[in-house]
């Protein structure tokens, strides 16, 4: 099944809603808690990157009994140096964002760490797209 959520850059009121919707669905589907948690973390980080760094985007999630695929596509400034952006601790987040507790430069590295497949593409001046796949280990029937 597919879930789709629009994400608006700079809208901190609605920030996190897409990830919250995904969490609700995963709980209903009965995905095991740990897999669900990984999916929630990467979806949240992807959503927040759009809110913080881009203009607008869409977070879409495809859930099957075997895996969870998360796509985050945005229109925005793009990332000029992806290997640099992937480094832990690298962040261009301005001061007022850091004050909100973001901008540690951990989002992208964690997205990679918690997903089984990770791909990021970006065109400067156009936008960024991230694709992540999380495999569902167990049948997830006990939790």
């Amino acid at each position, binding site marked *: 099944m597919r879930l789709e959520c629009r994400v608006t850059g700079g809208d901190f009121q609605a920030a996190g809603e897409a990830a919250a919707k995904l969490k609700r669905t995963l709980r*209903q589907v009965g995905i095991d808690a740990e897999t*669900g948690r990984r999916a929630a973390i990467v979806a949240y980080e992807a959503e927040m990157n759009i809110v913080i760094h881009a203009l607008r985007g869409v977070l879409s999630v495809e859930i099957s*009994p075997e895996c969870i695929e998360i796509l985050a596509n945005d229109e925005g400034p793009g990332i000029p140096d992806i290997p640099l952006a992937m480094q832990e601790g690298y962040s261009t987040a301005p001061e007022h964002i850091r004050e909100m507790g973001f901008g540690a430069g951990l989002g992208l590295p*964690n997205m990679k760490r918690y997903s089984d497949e990770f791909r990021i593409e970006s065109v400067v001046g156009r936008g960024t797209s991230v694709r992540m796949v999380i495999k569902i280990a167990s049948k997830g029937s006990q939790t």
Partner: protein
Amino acid sequence: MTGLFHSVLLIEEKCRGCTRCIKNCPTEAIRVRQGKARINAERCTDCGECIRTCDNHAKTAITDSLERLRDFKYTIALPAPALYGQFGPTVEPDQVLAALIDMGFDDVYEVARGADVATLVTREYLRAHREVRPMISAACPAVVRLIQVRFPALIDHLIPVDSPMTCAGKLAKESKSRELGIPPEDIGAFFITPCPAKVTWVREAVRRGFSSVDGAISISDVYGEVSRRLASPAPAPARRKASGAGIGWGGSGGENAAVGLGNYIVVDGIHSVVGVLEEVEVGRLADVDFIEAQACVGGCVGGALTVRNPFIAHVHLERLVKRFGDLPAFAASEEEDLRRRARAGGFDMRQDIAAVPAFRLDHDVSRAISKAEMIEKVVKDLPGLDCGSCGSPHCRALAEDIVQGLAVDTDCVFKLRDQVKILAEQLFDLAKKNPSAMSAEDGAKGRKE
């Protein structure tokens, strides 16, 4: 679902089906159907939020009555620290304890003393386990249940240490059984509880087998009896043993003040707790060591079964914290015993906190996925006003209920209106039609001529 005990329950005659409670429930456990609220037993955390919300007083809590003292040869009262907060600055804890004994208990063991034990064990645990952060206190059973039901991935974040109540019950029964030479089963330990969540926790423990606490009597039920005895002060035997820090556990922030380790967050009120847990679930707050989370605003002094205003009660507690704060809780040898016991798992309650999959749509993942897909379709067709007049807390919840066969789309008043409109139009069209046996003109008129 059936067979689960809950302290919180609905008094059907009083419920007027107003739907006020459904939006306030942190686990969306309540539905109004056929004009009456219903509580889903699997989801309910006994947080007491609906008791506080209902203007018709249709939600209530079952607690144990004092009659149950008769079931045991020897009884011990385990007063919650919040009980001390119910009385003014001139009342000594010793007087409160003496009043409980006068009411019929054979002995008392302060849960504030149990909190001193929990403080020690929690500190040990946080020091020894650094792999998971933040760790979340498991002292409030409503928060524990909330995590089991709504945040199962955070179960590993719970500190699996017995609550002050359980610590108190264990130690009280053990020492009395040794002292009197009677089996612990003959001793009844009764928690004097500020909340329904503890009642449920106790009943669950009793149901599982031998429990260190046998029943829970509400603070509001003993309040009058205790107050009455305070009015004519009898010489009270000095019995308070708890430290000020232990007493402080009765109000929010007290647990942290007692444990006093690392970075911490104090959060109270079930909806604020949900907000913090949402953050932890997506990997934030990993720089925090310890979260003290309590379902009630103000902590246990704000419990649904307390009497005094929580803010006033908190001030009373704070005074006691200051007065008794400096006293060491335990003698050195006693402390070493407790530590050894903690290391051996003597205060571990991990086995009591498994996930409760109360939101799962189906046992079969594939079927659950198709149902989730149907929910997405149904929800697109609902107005999205989240008004709650259908009896479900919001449009998405109604969609879920429809897919699960627990509601129909015309439970939505807007859907119903649309249906009525369509029906009315069809009726109107039908009314214009003439059966073919009649003439094209008005048949009745034709006959008259």
